[in-house]
């Protein structure tokens, strides 16, 4: 029954996608929409073929992906140990609390002007935007995750003779890992947001640049192609991430 209904849903989804794309194509072909405002899917496809041919599409996608990955890795590598430390220490949590609450609501975009002043239009500036945008929220996610651990488990560990450090390593880290990973998945989305905006404002390559540049040349097909590429890339990364997640959390089935 379950298999049946999943298969049914999939069929409906595919049919609905086909209808949607066909309708879009028709509306454009019949001239109801000015192609400047919305090009037909076929035009986007042609643009895609052209840009794959001259290598630009891959180059832009890789540029954005690389920036996201580098910035995100650095941010995670700092945030995870720091977050677990803060989550287990009331004192240092209180020390850093005002700073974190001030940084948390800041959209990563608001760092762009400052980062441009500090670092100019460089790759480091791009990484810094991703870092700035994802660090504070990652940290908060991780602190939250450490707090979600059943205190009973900490009691049980201590009752079996675990020291403070043992508790951190053997209970708090693995216990919060599923939530940390869930949080990082959200962060990865935010990292994409960061990089696209950084590229919209100042860049010479990347999907954000491609979209902005397309707009300046009135190539709405390039704009939409860029958007579709972002969607696809994020989806692919999501799938990869999920594979990796299962590896890391064998106990959750």
């Amino acid at each position, binding site marked *: 029954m379950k298999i049946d209904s999943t298969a049914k849903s999939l069929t409906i989804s595919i049919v609905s996608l086909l209808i949607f794309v066909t309708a879009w194509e028709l509306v454009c072909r019949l001239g109801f929409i000015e192609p400047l405002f919305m090009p037909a899917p076929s035009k986007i496809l042609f643009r895609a073929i052209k840009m794959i041919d001259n290598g630009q599409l891959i180059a832009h996608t890789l540029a954005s992906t690389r920036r996201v990955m580098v910035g995100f890795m650095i941010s995670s590598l700092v945030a995870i140990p720091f977050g677990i430390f803060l989550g287990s220490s009331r004192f240092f949590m209180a020390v850093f609390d005002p700073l974190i609450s001030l940084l948390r609501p800041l959209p990563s975009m608001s760092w762009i002007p400052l980062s441009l002043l500090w670092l*100019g239009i460089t790759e480091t500036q791009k990484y810094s935007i991703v870092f700035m945008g994802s660090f504070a929220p990652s940290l908060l996610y991780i602190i939250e995750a450490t707090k979600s651990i059943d205190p009973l488990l900490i009691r049980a560990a201590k009752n079996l003779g675990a020291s403070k450090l043992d508790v951190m390593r053997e209970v708090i880290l693995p216990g919060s890992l599923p939530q940390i990973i869930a949080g990082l998945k959200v962060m990865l989305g935010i990292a994409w947001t960061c990089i696209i905006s950084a590229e919209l404002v*100042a860049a010479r390559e990347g999907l954000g640049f491609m979209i902005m540049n397309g707009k*300046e040349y009135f190539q709405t097909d390039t704009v939409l192609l860029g958007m579709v590429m972002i969607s696809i890339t994020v989806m692919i990364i999501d799938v990869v991430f999920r594979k990796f997640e299962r590896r890391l959390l064998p106990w959750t089935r």
Partner: protein
Amino acid sequence: DGKPEKVTVIYGGSSWLGHYPAWVGIEKGLFKKHGLGVLFQNFYASSGRMGSLVAGDLDVAATGSISAIALMASGSKAFQAFGTPDSYATVEGIIAKENIKSIKDLKGKRIAAPFASSAHVLVLDVLEQNGLDPEKDLTLLNLKVNEMPAAMGSGEIDACAAWTPHFNKLLNMPGNHLLVNDTEFSLFKKYKLGPGPDLLVVRKEFAEKYPNTCQAFVKGYFEAVDMLIDEPEECAKVLVKLTSLDMEDQMAVLKDITWIKGDEQKALMVQPGDFVTGMQQLADFLVKHQQIDEAPKVKAWIAEKMVP
């Protein structure tokens, strides 16, 4: 004078005409003649370039004077000015739809200018001359120059202030005409100074540490200016690599520029310093229009020793 202490100079520029001499100097080997290697770093916006200069990533740069004045006003003492290479009063201005005959007709219309630029200052100035308030009488939009042809084309704006080469492109679009150019700027009438003349700047620490290198750079640079005056065609051939224009457009741009030679610099910058006086007026103008807080004493930022 001795040999350069340091043989590589990092120059910050863009495809803007103010950077033509540096590019020509590099491509035509004029710096090399003086024992210098110059690295041309491309920056899209003046502000990023100036930030890099102050941060020590660049040694020399050319920049719009608005940007330079703003940086002076921010209190940064880390840079100095030592020359002005060009005047381009006829390739920057306000372009409007044909139904707008005079500045007064702009009332109630949508007009675009890149904020914090010379074109912005031009708009503020001519509006003031005609008694219009940019806050109340019309809508002033912040748009990049390269976005203007599209915005004019779609009718989203009624007029815009831009500079070459988009200036020329906008003029050639049907239904557009030139409303005013930089010659209508109030300070131009007095000092022959546009709203945003280009300025050569150097990192102060660099100037103090490597005086010979700086001298060599200045020499090579103004030799390039001479070449731009004497052999424009030769120069255009290398410039297209920087600007991506075709030869014809490139020559047209060159024709509109008035280059200022090395031996004229002293008069503008130091004795008697007409240009600097004009810059000071510009700074006061910016204060009046609340673009900066306090007018810097521009004189204090002139590297007198480097002016040829």
